[in-house]
């Protein structure tokens, strides 16, 4: 049988469509002209499949030359994308919006959605805080728009904007949502898309839609489980015990008391604090429809040990969604409840630094009466040395830091289409977002840390419980009217939103020696947002699109005069492909131009005070800060600083984009260019001395600019019967610059920041006009003719200068998915170029005098012998190091069984390696450090995962 496969609408031939003889494994693929030929019985039926089209079946019926027309699948045609307070057809989008469904993502060991979103979208940078189980992540969309205020995007789960800051005792506030329950992500990047969320949208919006049941769906059960082994990928190179003995005897030859401290042991402290860690993860979901009631229920359990001994994370999640349609399809109900319970045992990362510097010639344990049998440094009088390093292993075993966290998000959304006017919809959304944590930190009495850390240093143990509860409630209501009049289509929406954020917490510390007990005092606080918003969409001839949005936001955080902020946006799109002059250009399947402008606001001050404009007094309840009159101690009453003129920070975004599709969208690409200007920046700046109860205060001053380009291309390089290959590449370039910091221009003015380890009060960043946020502020190191740094020799008369920043210039992501028959091989890669780190591990642990400080020996990094510094050179640019990298995040090889174990079960078995390799010139352990200050980061493990997915 011969034939040709065509697009039913355009008549274009389709390349790479699968043609199979029904009920057999015989088949072929159409060639470049859309033709195929294969052997088939004359009574056979051919099945033709192509991505984005409905499957077609055609009886051969004795014919030998067939024309098969494929209908574009309604899903592709009507594929809708969530936008704020509504949805829109994907090809009617006017803003910079990217939507990805999770089934197209390569997953590693994912406890949070941030783990799977990493590297998948241009301009969306996700960096985990480290390799601890359940660790949090920093998300930056197109760089940050704020300096002192929050730079986190707004995250909206099933139409509920959630509190991104989380609760105490939870390192990742977003891990309450099981990534297995997520159906799609939509990232709104430019202001024309985000402005509908006004006040909290300056840093982009991530809309998450979870999986639901549907009426069409048959009862389905699926199980997804995996087991993992985490191993340490790399350790820091320090002097071995023998090398250290040689070094100390030589370097401290003039002070015989120093080498006398050396021990005779060979202890590898890094080996002692790390372990190979196991984990497992199970997810079970049931979906279907009970009569008219579509439902989905899921439960998940994950338990992971960390590679740093004692660390563990476990989580149980459950979710239920019901989405019936009532009143003859006029009322759509969408009810979701998600809950999670997590337990954390945190390992103190101080053990990591301690393991690098603890003397390798000492033994682990000792019979001394101090230190609970762990070796610790003693003074010459035999009592504990309070400024020594704590025994690394004891840091983990003698401290117990645990937390128990409940989180739940739920909402009920009613969408009613009026019986009289079906074009008019009313939508009501009621939601809550609750988190509650209980935790405590216990330090054993007489443990090494009880002498070395904290404020007491007298061997007293401590018990420090804490509690926090956040309750956020939401009401959204909007009306939407959509109608088409001839060539005009309009969609008008207007609504109101009310959101309340309540937070209460307490913490306390009790010492076993019973001195200075801190009373337990609850600290409740709350703020409120009220908003009015509207959107007008106008489409002419299905070709020219206009979107206008307006949001008026009020926050309780500002005084009455400054409380309201108005945030408009407008966007235009032109579907050029629909124009007559392009309609017949067959190779071009899509061409759309987009232009957008919008303003967004920021009221998240990143300070703990929800009432910054109200003059208040704070009566201290701490017994260790009182003043004495006569013989009586008085608690202190302090007036708090306040700023009545605080107002919205505003960010203006300009965006121009082009979307392209080629060869029936087998290749799609888009390019966006943007500029973002932040004004009235919420910024902590010096207050004129004598005018307020503080020296630096959050104020609206200064401006910042982000400019960038984003490029994404997705395609199918190979489509054949047995082998298909999907490839997606994205690139984002962003340049950040502070353009104004003070009311009067002052080139010499800078705000230092970025605490480093070493010395007291040393900082490494500066905020300065003309430079990116968090530029390093350092001395220019002078080198000798051999290229070695000369200690204490700096260029330009030792003046500080700005040298690079932690933010990358360019980030890239590459995802590949290959299917060969029933096998599949997926991988994800990520690269970051132009980001620099301050190598604080090196700067604080390689200068030679460090080897004997405060009466104890400290080991050095192996680089010490090359760098050859005697004293600390904390602010030398020698330690500002290029941390560009390329990483392979994960590789998965799997096999799909059609009939698993000869049953009806469909199953997939896979193996994944996560954190496969890193290519970098960076001298530290791992170049990926989100704030750029590399110090005691929990190493990201290399993880080996075996998984099984079963559906029936």
């Amino acid at each position, binding site marked *: 049988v011969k034939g040709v496969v065509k697009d039913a609408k355009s008549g274009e031939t389709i390349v790479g469509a699968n043609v199979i003889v029904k009920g057999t494994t015989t088949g072929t693929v159409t060639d470049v002209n859309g033709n195929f030929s294969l052997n088939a019985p004359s009574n056979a039926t051919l099945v033709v499949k192509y991505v984005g089209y409905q499957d077609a079946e055609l009886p051969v019926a004795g014919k030998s030359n067939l024309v098969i027309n494929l209908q574009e699948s309604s899903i592709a045609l009507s594929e809708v994308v969530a936008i704020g307070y509504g949805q829109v057809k994907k090809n009617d989008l006017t803003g910079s919006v990217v939507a990805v469904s999770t089934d197209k993502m390569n997953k590693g060991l994912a406890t949070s959605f941030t783990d799977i979103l990493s590297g998948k979208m241009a301009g969306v940078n996700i960096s985990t805080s480290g390799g601890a189980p359940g660790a949090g992540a920093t998300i930056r969309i197109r760089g940050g728009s704020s300096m002192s205020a929050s730079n986190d995007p707004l995250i909206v789960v099933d139409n509920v904007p959630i509190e991104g800051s989380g609760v105490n005792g939870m390192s990742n506030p977003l891990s309450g949502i099981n990534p297995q329950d997520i159906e799609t992500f939509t990232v709104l990047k430019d202001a024309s898309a985000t402005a509908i969320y006004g006040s909290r949208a300056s840093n982009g919006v991530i809309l998450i839609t979870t999986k639901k049941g549907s009426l069409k769906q048959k009862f389905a059960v699926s199980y997804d489980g995996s087991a993992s082994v985490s191993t340490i990928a790399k350790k820091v190179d320090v002097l071995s015990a023998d090398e250290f003995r040689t070094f100390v005897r030589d370097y401290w030859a003039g002070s015989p008391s120093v080498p006398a401290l050396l021990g005779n042991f060979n202890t590898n402290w890094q080996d002692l604090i790390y372990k190979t860690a196991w984990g497992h993860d199970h997810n079970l979901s049931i979906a279907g429809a009970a009569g008219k009631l579509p439902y989905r229920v899921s439960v998940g359990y994950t338990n992971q040990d960390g590679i740093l001994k004692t660390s563990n994370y476990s989580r149980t999640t459950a979710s239920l969604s019901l989405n019936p349609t009532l009143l003859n399809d006029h009322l759509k109900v969408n009810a979701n409840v998600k809950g999670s319970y997590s337990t954390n045992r945190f390992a103190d990362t101080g053990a990591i630094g301690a393991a690098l510097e603890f003397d390798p010639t000492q033994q682990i344990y000792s019979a001394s009466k101090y230190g609970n049998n762990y070796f610790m440094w003693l003074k010459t009088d035999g009592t504990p040395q309070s400024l020594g390093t704590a025994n690394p292993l004891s840091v983990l075993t003698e401290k117990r830091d645990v937390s128990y966290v409940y989180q739940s998000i739920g909402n009920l959304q009613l969408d009613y289409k009026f019986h009289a006017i079906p074009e008019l919809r009313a939508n009501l959304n009621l939601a809550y977002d609750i988190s509650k944590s209980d935790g405590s930190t216990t330090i054993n009495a007489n443990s090494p840390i009880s002498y070395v850390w904290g404020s007491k240093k007298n061997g007293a143990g401590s018990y420090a419980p804490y509690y926090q509860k956040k309750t956020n409630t939401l009401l959204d209501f909007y009306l939407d009217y959509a109608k088409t009049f001839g060539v005009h289509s309009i969609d008008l929406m207007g609504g109101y939103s009310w959101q309340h954020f309540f937070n209460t917490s307490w913490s306390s510390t009790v010492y076993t020696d019973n001195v200075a007990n801190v009373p337990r005092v609850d600290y409740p606080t709350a703020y409120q947002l009220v908003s009015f918003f509207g959107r007008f969409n106008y489409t002419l001839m299905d070709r020219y699109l206009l979107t206008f949005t307006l949001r008026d936001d*009020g926050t309780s955080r500002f005084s009455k005069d400054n*409380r309201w902020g108005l945030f408009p946006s407008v966007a235009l799109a032109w579907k050029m492909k629909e124009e007559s002059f392009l309609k017949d250009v067959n190779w071009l399947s899509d061409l759309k131009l987009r232009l957008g402008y919008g303003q967004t606001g920021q009221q998240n001050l990143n300070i703990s005070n929800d009432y910054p404009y109200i003059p208040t007094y704070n009566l201290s309840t701490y017994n260790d800060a009182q003043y004495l009159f006569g013989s009586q101690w008085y608690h202190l009453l302090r007036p708090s600083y306040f700023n009545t003129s605080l107002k919205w920070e505003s960010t203006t975004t300009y965006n121009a984009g082009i979307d392209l599709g080629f060869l029936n969208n087998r290749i799609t690409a888009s390019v966006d260019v943007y500029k973002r200007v932040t004004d009235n920046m919420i910024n902590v700046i010096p207050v004129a*001395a004598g005018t307020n109860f503080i020296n630096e205060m959050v104020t609206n001053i200064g401006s910042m600019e982000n400019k960038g380009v984003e490029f994404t291309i997705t395609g199918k390089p190979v489509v054949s019967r047995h082998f298909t290959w999907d490839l997606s590449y994205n690139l984002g370039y962003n340049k950040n610059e502070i353009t104004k910091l003070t009311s009067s221009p002052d080139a010499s003015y800078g705000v230092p920041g970025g605490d480093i380890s070493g010395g007291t009060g040393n900082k490494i960043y500066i905020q300065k006009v003309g430079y990116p946020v968090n530029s390093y502020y350092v001395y220019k190191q002078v080198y000798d003719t051999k290229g070695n740094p000369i200690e204490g020799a700096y260029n330009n008369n030792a003046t500080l200068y700005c040298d690079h920043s932690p933010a990358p210039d360019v980030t890239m992501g590459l995802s590949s998915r290959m299917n060969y028959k029933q096998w599949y091989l997926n991988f994800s890669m990520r690269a970051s170029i132009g980001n620099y780190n301050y190598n604080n591990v090196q700067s604080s642990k390689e200068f030679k005098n460090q080897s004997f400080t405060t009466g104890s020996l400290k080991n050095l990094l192996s680089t010490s012998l090359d760098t050859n510094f005697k004293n600390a050179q904390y602010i030398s640019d020698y330690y500002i190091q290029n941390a560009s990298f390329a990483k392979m995040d994960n590789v998965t090889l799997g096999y799909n069984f059609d009939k698993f174990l000869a049953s009806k079960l469909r199953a997939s078995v896979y193996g994944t390696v996560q954190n496969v390799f890193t290519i970098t010139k960076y001298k530290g352990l791992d170049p990926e450090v989100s704030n750029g200050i590399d110090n005691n980061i929990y190493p990201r493990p290399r993880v080996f995962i075996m998984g099984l997915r079963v559906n029936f």
Partner: protein
Amino acid sequence: CVNDLDVTPLNKSISTETTTFSNTSGAYISYLAKVYAGFATGGIQGGDANVDVVGMDGGSQAGYLRPLWNLQELPTEEAMCCWNDQTIGNFHALNWTASDVFIKGFYSRLYYQITIATAFLQETTDDKLASRNVSSTLKDSIATFRAEARFLRALAYYNVLDMFRNGPLVNDASPIGSATLPAYADSQTIFKFIESELTDCQAKLSNPVVGNSNQYGHANKAAAWSLLARLYLNANAFLGTNDAKYYTSCIENCNKVTAIGYTLEPVYQNLFVTDNYNSKEIIFPIVIDGTNLTSWGGMQFLECSATASDGSYNPLNAPGTWGGNRATMQFLDRFKSMSNYQDDARYKMLYTGYNHTSIDDQSDFKQGVQVFKFSNLSSTGVKNTASFASTDFPMFRLGDIYLMYVEAFLRGGAGANQTTALKYINDLSKRANSISGGNYSASDLTLSFILEERAREMFWECTRRTDLVRFGKLTDANYVWQWKAGVKAGAGSDSYRNYYPIPTADLTANTNLKQNTGY
């Protein structure tokens, strides 16, 4: 629903003006306690947590006593720090800049103290007290509190004048919390302000009580007179004038203090012990306590930073061993000019047992002369067991008043006489050296003797930089010590190093200000 945006703080420990102040004493005395505590600890939680002054290290940069000590002692022969903390090395090298964080920290602390003291005065006006139905008895005690707040504000302004000469001036009428920028005031204006404030407030301060009493901690009239004496003694240096009337005023105030009946502490060391609150010499202390008032700055710093970090020598039971500050070997010369110096109790506080008094390696604590003055033991040798220091800092004491009297007399002030001057000097000498001290005669009383005697008597008590400036020696190339101006043998420096620059941060924030000459 839009009205939901009108909120008030939920937390009970946070209150507004109306819920804070009533007709009972609690809030007023706690507020006053905070104004005092700002001189002792960096915040309203122990260990300088919950700080008042932000953007820098609470204990080491944003408190009062430790920065005061750093700025007053490090540029002199009395102290050199071996740490690598930011710009700390620039002080001994007389090489600081306007963006220095330690200078910014102290300046911010001074103006913080000025602001909260001013706000206290604004919150306790007659009108406000009347509106709260405050009884006349309470109003009387609040009147004393107000005088104390004025004194504490004048003390902070005295430090501004001493360190910076010029700066912004806020007074009772300044609107706190508004964008109105304070006016720039030159040294003359600030001097006048301090003078009139102290003269005014001393009338309402309580009468001096010698030794421990139920008034301990409060500033009394004698504290105001002591500060006036110090202000007048230095007036010519602060104002660039040469007018003997200031010395007369200095003597007048010294005489008011000595008339009260303060007596020299019989044992010099007991001025600096954990029970020094019993001392009959101390006129005004900064209270420090290891349990109730803890800080990493202040006395904790003075004791721990002076003790070698290996704990190899800790005679005064320092609550920590940080190995940071020691004196230069030239400081020994201040004693060695006396023939009988080895019997002197003050000399015995210096330690040379590490046998390396020359500082060749600036980062080696054991090079130089170690100083063991502030003690974590009681007068009877009982060890303080709290993890923080518990010794009060003597801000003003009779010994200093004696020295000021003698110096003002030598500089031509009226109202003093040689017999009393000689007695004061011999009393101090005898107290320090009961074996062979107290033998000075009138011919020994010279200004250069006073500069040396002040080093011997007042070392590490935060007066040395001021003294050297007054004597024109701080930047003098002929009066040097190791590493002065960054040169190992010591060198002179520019005369603008006699005062500090106004921090860049405030110059940027307040466009009314001008940078000090030279910076």
